[in-house]
């Protein structure tokens, strides 16, 4: 029995040593995968930050770190580093990896940035639970994690340019590139206020006798102001906290609409829940090109800029 006991003790010790070595090596693999991922993200952002505005690149990130560990990508205001938060193999407790960035002006416009994290106002986080291909765009000196095309509706993918103006948009008095379309028009366009560098998503409906309801289902970006040409038409939904609009354009009123003004870039996803009137809805680019949206009700359209 004594011998058997000694052998058992030996095997317990050996088992512990093997387990410890296994845990260490797995923690190292997580460390390596986390650190290299942080470096890869930083490389992409730094390379893009070194070139001028308008350039873009893509970044592929895996669904998980080694050992099927989900992770979160975080950026903080006034801190020039990319952080990855995962969990250790051995204890499950938090692990954090960081890599230096050459800018702190990183903005996430992806829908994943609005869910899953308890992000504060000075923090942006992207909770990753599936492999992603992220588009990075350099715009106005900042780096934006955004969607590949700035206008997406089901299988429709298109890009539009913002309209530059020194001043805020006026939904009741659209600019010439909008009115050029004629009296019967329904458009959405992106307005860039060159005075304060803010952006706005503007809806303008001039199809007389038309009626439309919009409900936002998702939105990223820092909303500064919601404006409407008529009070009460463009409001916040008490249940979701997101904007909703209900426009009814009578024959006597030439233009109806409203705007959402954001501090920097934005991404707004909305569904038209009720549409009447003969005219198409267009997403209008400042160069005059336009993209026709499907008028199928409840079909979600996402417009992001940049």
């Amino acid at each position, binding site marked *: 029995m004594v*011998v058997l006991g000694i052998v058992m003790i030996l095997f317990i010790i050996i088992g512990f*040593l093997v387990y410890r070595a296994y845990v260490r*090596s797995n923690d190292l693999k997580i460390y390596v995968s986390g650190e290299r991922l942080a470096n890869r993200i*930083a490389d992409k952002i*730094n390379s893009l930050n070194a070139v001028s505005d308008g350039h873009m690149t893509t970044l592929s990130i895996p669904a998980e770190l080694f050992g099927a560990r989900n992770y979160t990508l975080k950026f903080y205001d006034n*801190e020039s580093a*990319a952080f990855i938060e995962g969990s250790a193999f051995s204890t499950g407790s938090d692990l954090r990896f960081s890599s*230096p960035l*050459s800018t702190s002006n990183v903005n996430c416009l992806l829908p994943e940035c609005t869910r899953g994290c308890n992000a504060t106002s000075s923090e942006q986080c992207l909770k990753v639970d599936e492999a992603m291909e992220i588009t990075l765009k350099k715009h106005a000196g900042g780096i934006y994690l955004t969607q590949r095309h700035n206008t997406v509706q089901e299988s429709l993918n298109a890009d539009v340019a913002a309209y530059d103006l020194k001043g805020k948009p006026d939904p009741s008095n659209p600019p010439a590139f909008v009115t050029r379309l004629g009296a019967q028009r329904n458009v959405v366009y992106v307005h860039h206020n060159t005075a304060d560098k803010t952006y706005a998503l503007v809806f303008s409906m001039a199809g007389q006798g038309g009626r439309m309801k919009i409900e936002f289902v998702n939105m990223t970006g820092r909303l500064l102001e919601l404006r409407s040409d008529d009070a009460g038409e463009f409001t916040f939904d008490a249940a979701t906290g997101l904007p909703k609009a209900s426009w009814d354009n009578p024959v006597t009123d030439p233009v109806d609409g409203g705007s959402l003004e954001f501090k920097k870039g934005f991404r707004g996803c909305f569904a038209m829940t009720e549409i009447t009137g003969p005219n198409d809805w267009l997403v209008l680019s400042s160069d005059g090109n336009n993209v026709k949206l499907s008028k199928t009700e409840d079909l979600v359209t996402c417009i992001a800029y940049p």
Partner: protein
Amino acid sequence: MHSLPVKMKSKGQMFTWDMIFGLTLFLLTFGITISIWDTSYNDLRSSEDGYEMTWLVETVGDQLVRTAGDPPNWARENVITYGLTEESGAYGQTESRIIDADKLLMLLQDLRSNYTKVRDRLLGSGTYDLYLEVSCLNSTGLTCLQGIPLQNVTDTVGCNNQPIYVNRPWKMTNSYEWHEAEDLWGNNDESQCAIGCSRGNLSAIHQAPDAHVPSKKGGHYVWVRVLGNPGGGAWIFIDQTAYPLYAGTSGGIIDWKFLGTQELGYEAVIGFNDTAAGDMVDALLLTTDQSYDPRRDNRDRYGNPNTGKPCEAGLKPAGGEVHTVMKTGIIGLPPTALDRLTGREPVGDGIVQLRVAVWGGRERTARISGETTTSTTTTTLRKAIDCNPIADKDMCVSDKPSVITMENTVLWGAGGPEYTLTCGINKDVTINWVGNHGGNPNYFAFFVDDGRYMVGKCKSDVPANEVPPGDPNGDYEYEMNCTLWPDPVALPLPNGMHTLIVTAENEGGFCYPSPMNDSYDAVMDDINIDLTGCLNYNSIPCQKWAEGYPPPFGCLPASDSVGDIHSLNVLGGALTRGQEETVEVKWEGDHGPYGHVQWTFLVKYGSIYDTVGYCHSDVVGDTGTLNYYTMECKFTVPGSIPCGPQYLYAVAEARDGRYCKEPDNPLAEAVKIIGVTVDGC
């Protein structure tokens, strides 16, 4: 059937030699496996750390020379990300590798005063350490950073091993154009070099032809090192302005002579007149630095301020694995109107080299947070020892060859390395050195500037189990902690950049540095420190009598009352024509038998000295003691002074109520010159 004996039953059959052998073999194999596993793990971990440091150093190097930083026009107060390129256009667009001198100097300032902030922002964490070396591609030392116009930086910038002096009134880095006489006039002669000639030669200048030397456009302080011939009547000409070559030289056979201040173009013509055989010159210095006095730096370089070494900033390791990258860039210049019109980026002619080094030489935890740390990087650690303060032990004994090699010295503050030394406050210092104790304690001593000003001395006892030198294992790497105690009474030095000197001695006691003693085992004399709070000046008024203007002028024989004028500052930063300005004078000395010192303030433009103010200080009975005074004098700047960069002179006269307004007169008691900017035109 026979039953087995009871004895055999009780023993069983498992405990046999076969089992012992099998178990031993298994344990041996298992132990080897675990050992290989551990080694493999550590190798992997070490390799990963190496990869990480390589990645970091490349990233940081590129970030510095290819981005403007965040915000693009960052200052020390609001910097988020360090980038050194000039901002051009909106949104921080930048010209890659055109370096903004202000940003480079601000980065060096932050590395010196707030190392941890810089490290964390450049490396993204505090896991590794870093340091920078700044040098020039096509010249030795930091000449590519000299004479560079500045926008924001107004204070002298300290590298760990040397200062980069900033000319506050003229808003530029100071330049030090050093010319060896033998390069200009040949005629090498080493016969008179007994007390040292820079680069080993003098030049005989009798009947020497004119020499054309490149210069920087603007005002300069002109110094020449001559072979003394007090009776000689030779003259030196700088661009047609003549100066007596020998008048006013002092101290030793060969000495520096301050010729004067002079405006120079991009080239200066230097010639001699009335020379005789035996007239010799060692070197010429054209500098914009009003405070630089080559006579004070005569130990090794004979007054040459260009050390030839790169500027080192950050935390430098002693040995260990260091990952480095070298990046280059051109120093950008402020755009002229033409540059703005054409949209081009004006650049200087100097290429600056930036060597970035990242290291993690000491044992440190894995780069993870909280309590989850499970791994360490195993490296060879330096042995930590203490150097304990001693009361007195001045018995320096020559013991060559040396058994001590000092590698680097780090002064510590609350947040990491900090090279400020404040009188009355103890300072922690770490010296990394390699060598042995040789069976005796080793002695270390610390001095500011030279052997007169000691700030600490200590003894390092022989650690247990140290084998003697000569043994294959007798070469140790030590990380030694010491404490400095700068005593304000023993350290009457003005605020500003000074040099910390460390001597190490294996035998007897501590050593003074050269030239007081050369018996030390090792010396380190290029540690640049900011000294504060050591010299307390007595504030005295400087006022006018009722004699009206002009006061009685005259330079009378010196009474040796006024010693050195430490500083002369225009408190408003610039002299504005038609406005009352205040200048501050700090000086040492006394008021002589008359109890008065008369001060005259002059502005020099071209070859004209224009009196702009005067006052007198009065202290009776301070003769015979060394006093330190600070005083302010007010005067209204005449409208006749041309605007632009000029020179302000303070001239002291301690005799008979007279004011001396001739700075070049040998009878002037004391003279201080600074560069000023005159505005209000």
